[in-house]
């Protein structure tokens, strides 16, 4: 179906592509940003939670009597107080084999992970609420904590009774003749990769402020969220509020990275409690709560296997992705998306591999639920694909560049085995440019000399293709029935200034600036004459969420269509005023002029004034609206691509790995603002370095999280963050506004693979290869002694049996 809202009117570029300084910055640099916790409503109370101290336990008794008597405490709720109002939040992902699960707002009868909210306390201040939490007695009977996803996925003790088999999703698919590829392979390589459990850890933790006005039956909810419109829908679906009576407000937001693309129990409880107490209530979590319960991410066990011919051309790929899903589906993300995406979307990447087979699974465990964090599924899939590519290269004695060049897709359009069409890309060029940037022969020489001096340098590369931005076209390509819904509203005043409202809010990505650049070019007016309100209230345009590298593409597409509708009004009246044909009207630099006769011109402000106030200047039959809301979406998937190369140095005395330099190549089509693109690259790559070298959420044998502060959970600091060299390639999209593509996730998608490949290159003299991240000093010290904790992949016969597939010869035996 080719809907009108798939169209992108053409834009003459002027501001698009410029390194415009951000209009957001002045307020943020002077302490004048207004983040969630900077907003107070007169008479507000404060909330705090008693959270489960056990990974798995039956609730025997909750004693709130002492806490209730504490002065300043106004409400204490357990599950029994709210279950009639909300039975919990059900979530299910629409891929084959995903079963629904329901997350309660407060644990009922059983607690299922350390940090799960059990009791809500509302008091005069956060301090009093915390005092009261300390006075609440929680008696639990221990239940067995289910902590190993590789065991729990096979059954046994149950982590959450709603899924007695511990399976959150399980599915299988095969495209092309995979058996033939493996049975006839000259080489088969396989490995099991294990990226560790991490947290998005935005600098601003989660929080919300609910203010229910009983006299008008209106609810205002301020929330630090990436999907405010979805939060508003949930107020209806889960709590029964009329959406028309709710406003969800997104103030300045201190980072999200996917974590704030969920709807959390705490965010549903505040409106209920505010309605009950008839007082505004604020909840802002602390860092410990954020690390315990704010959603975890990216931990998977990914087995990947390539069949290759004698030359090293890969003829087939098999993937098994198993995510350690935690205790519930985090709504709406679910634990299922992570492993499904790794297995179903990423295995062929930029490579011309004709056959793919995969099994995806999510294991329910007694840990914090798995949620979204930049590059959901893509990160683990890219790690496995790119690191096994290096294994194949090592086996065939080919450089990481040569083995990739041999296998990269040579021309477009290209259709992968799953039937996904890639319209364009610079996949081969990316590899070539990376090789040139690192000056590979010079690096090899330096590495050899360093080794003689007892220094261990490593070079790792990783190339990627990512869906960008996530759209209806991408969902349809994967056989899913859901669609996205996004709009923008553009309004021109009678004096010619412009207000743009987007439904996609910003967590630091700079939408105020980039969307103004787009609107300025569509309308031919100055950047300064445009004010952008990027999703700050659900009263404005609609948005499906700032997720999946989509805001730049989708919001600019909506702004283009809405601004173009105003442009048509301006052109019609200008043509009438200048006695010219509409086809000859040019809008630029704030003027409407006649092509070829630049002296025949009128200011756009005067045209706007005429549309509002002077009917005599209108053409016959003119309709004077100067405010349009338009949707935009894509009919087909869109993909950006690129790669990273990293040089690391391993300190043999300490095992510490230092990243010396990063080289990045990004092709996200036409860039609206290269400075902002580069900011996204650096930030994402450094998060990838964190995942690769430092960050790890650790549970002990009883299921207690050991890493509950930034001292234990170590995100990268300035002293371990490398300098960058960035190059841009430009392969425009044919379907988006001005040819832009999304790129917000690419850094984290591809950097961990580059880290692991670089680490393994540095380890080469020791004869060790690591398959697990983060590559901590402990792991490196062991690897230098030849000690690597190798987990064998599960045999395919067992995976097929679990997935209900007819077993056959796997062809996985090493034949080379």
């Amino acid at each position: 179906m080719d809907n009108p809202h798939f169209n992108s009117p053409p834009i003459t570029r002027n501001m698009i592509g410029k390194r415009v300084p951000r209009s957001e910055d002045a307020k943020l640099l002077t302490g004048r940003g207004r983040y969630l916790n900077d907003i107070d409503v007169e008479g507000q109370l404060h909330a705090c939670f008693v959270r489960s101290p056990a990974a798995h336990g039956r609730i025997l008794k909750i004693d709130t009597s002492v806490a209730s008597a504490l002065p300043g405490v106004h409400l204490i709720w357990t599950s029994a107080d709210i279950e009639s109002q909300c039975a919990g939040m059900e979530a299910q992902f629409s891929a084959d084999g995903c079963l629904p699960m329901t997350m309660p707002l407060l644990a009922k009868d059983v607690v299922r992970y350390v940090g799960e909210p059990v009791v809500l306390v509302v008091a005069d201040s956060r301090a009093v609420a915390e005092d009261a939490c300390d006075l609440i007695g929680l008696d639990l009977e221990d239940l067995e904590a289910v902590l190993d996803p590789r065991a729990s996925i096979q059954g046994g003790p149950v982590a959450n009774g709603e899924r007695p088999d511990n399976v959150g999703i399980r599915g299988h698919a095969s495209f092309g003749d995979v058996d033939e590829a493996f049975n006839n392979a000259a080489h088969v390589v396989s490995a099991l990769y294990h990226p560790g459990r991490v947290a998005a850890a935005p600098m601003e933790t989660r929080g919300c402020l609910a203010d229910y006005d009983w006299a008008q039956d209106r609810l205002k909810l301020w929330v630090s969220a990436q999907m405010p419109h979805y939060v508003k829908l949930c107020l209806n679906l889960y709590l029964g509020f009329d959406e028309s009576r709710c406003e969800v407000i997104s103030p300045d937001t201190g980072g999200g990275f996917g974590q704030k693309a969920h709807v959390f129990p705490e965010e549903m409880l505040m409106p209920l409690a505010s309605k009950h107490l008839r007082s505004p209530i604020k909840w802002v979590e602390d860092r410990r709560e954020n690390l315990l319960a704010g959603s975890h991410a990216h931990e998977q066990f990914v087995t990947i296997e390539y069949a290759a011919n004698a030359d090293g051309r890969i003829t087939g790929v098999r993937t098994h992705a198993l995510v350690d899903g935690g205790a519930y589906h985090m709504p709406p993300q679910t634990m299922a998306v992570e492993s499904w995406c790794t297995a179903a979307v990423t295995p062929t990447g930029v490579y011309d591999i004709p056959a793919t087979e995969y099994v995806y699974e999510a294991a329910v465990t007694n840990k914090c639920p798995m949620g979204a964090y930049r590059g959901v599924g893509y990160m683990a899939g890219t790690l496995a694909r790119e690191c096994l590519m290096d294994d194949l290269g090592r086996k065939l004695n080919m450089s990481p560049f040569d083995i990739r060049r041999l296998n990269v897709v040579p021309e477009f359009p290209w259709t992968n085995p799953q039937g996904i069409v890639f319209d364009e890309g610079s996949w081969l060029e990316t590899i070539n440019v990376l090789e040139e940037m690192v000056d590979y022969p010079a690096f090899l020489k330096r590495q050899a000399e360093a080794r003689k001096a007892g220094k261990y340098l490593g070079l790792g590369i990783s190339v990627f293709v990512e869906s960008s931005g996530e759209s209806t076209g991408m969902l349809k390509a994967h056989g899913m029935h859901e669609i996205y819904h996004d709009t923008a509203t553009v309004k021109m005043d009678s004096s010619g200034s412009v207000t743009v409202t987007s439904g996609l809010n910003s967590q630091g990505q700079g939408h105020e600036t980039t969307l103004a650049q787009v609107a300025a070019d569509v309308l031919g007016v100055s950047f300064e004459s445009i004010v952008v309100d990027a999703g700050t209230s659900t009263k404005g345009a609609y948005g499906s969420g700032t997720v999946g590298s989509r805001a730049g593409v989708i919001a600019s597409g909506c702004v283009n269509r809405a601004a173009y509708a105003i442009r048509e009004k301006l052109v019609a009246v200008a043509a009438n005023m200048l006695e010219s044909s509409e086809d000859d009207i040019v809008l630029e630099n704030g003027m409407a002029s006649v092509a070829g006769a630049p002296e025949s011109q009128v200011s756009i402000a005067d045209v706007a004034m005429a549309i509002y106030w002077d009917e005599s200047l209108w053409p016959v039959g003119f309709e004077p609206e100067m405010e349009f809301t338009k949707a935009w979406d894509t009919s087909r998937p869109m993909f950006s691509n690129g790669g990273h190369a990293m040089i690391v140095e391993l300190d043999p005395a300490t095992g510490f790995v230092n990243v010396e330099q990063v080289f990045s190549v990004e092709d996200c089509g036409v860039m609206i603002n290269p400075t902002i693109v580069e900011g996204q690259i650096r930030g994402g790559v450094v998060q990838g370095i964190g995942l690769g070298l430092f960050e790890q959420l650790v549970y002990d044998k009883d299921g207690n999280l050991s890493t509950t502060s930034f001292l234990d959970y170590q995100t990268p600091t300035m002293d371990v963050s490398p300098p960058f060299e960035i190059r841009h390639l430009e392969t425009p999209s044919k379907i988006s506004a001005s040819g832009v593509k999304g790129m917000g996730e690419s850094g984290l998608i591809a950097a961990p693979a580059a880290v692991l490949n670089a680490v393994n290159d540095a380890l080469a003299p020791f004869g060790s290869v690591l398959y697990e991240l983060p590559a901590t000093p402990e792991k490196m010290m062991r690897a230098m002694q030849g000690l690597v904790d190798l987990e064998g992949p599960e045999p395919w016969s067992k995976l097929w049996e679990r997935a209900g597939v007819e077993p056959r010869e796997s062809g996985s035996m090493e034949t080379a």
Partner: protein
Amino acid sequence: MTSTSSSDRIEIDVEINGRRRAVVVNARDTLADHLRNDQKLTGTKLGCEQGVCGACTILMDGAAVRSCLTLAAQGDGRSIRTVEDLSEGSSLSPLQEAFKKHHALQCGFCTAGFLMSATELLESNPSPTRDEVVEALSGNFCRCTGYQTIVAAVLDASEQIGNANG
């Protein structure tokens, strides 16, 4: 020795951003609580409340301190500067301008802490080397930028300030 209870109040005499005043604070409140909740100076952010992330960094008698680990009562007799004090009139300071020019902020939540740590550095060492900048600012966490542009901004600001001072 006297004990304090959670409801105790303490009177202090403190200078905040050039204005000296006598205020009564909760004994249990941190300096960050006092600045944000009582003084409504919300530019100072709380990122961890554990003294690790540096978002709450302010200057106390010219020294960068974590306002989440400092009690409000410890402000007695001190001079405190927060991010709200850095700009001059309605224009950004050279340091703030450099942050904008180099795209040294994205979400902005950590920015006040970086600006205050960098201010302490530049006031004590007007021409720092790259290594000195990294040493001074590695106690501040940023999750958005990857840091390179923050280093560039501080080095650029030191040059601008140096030029302006001739």
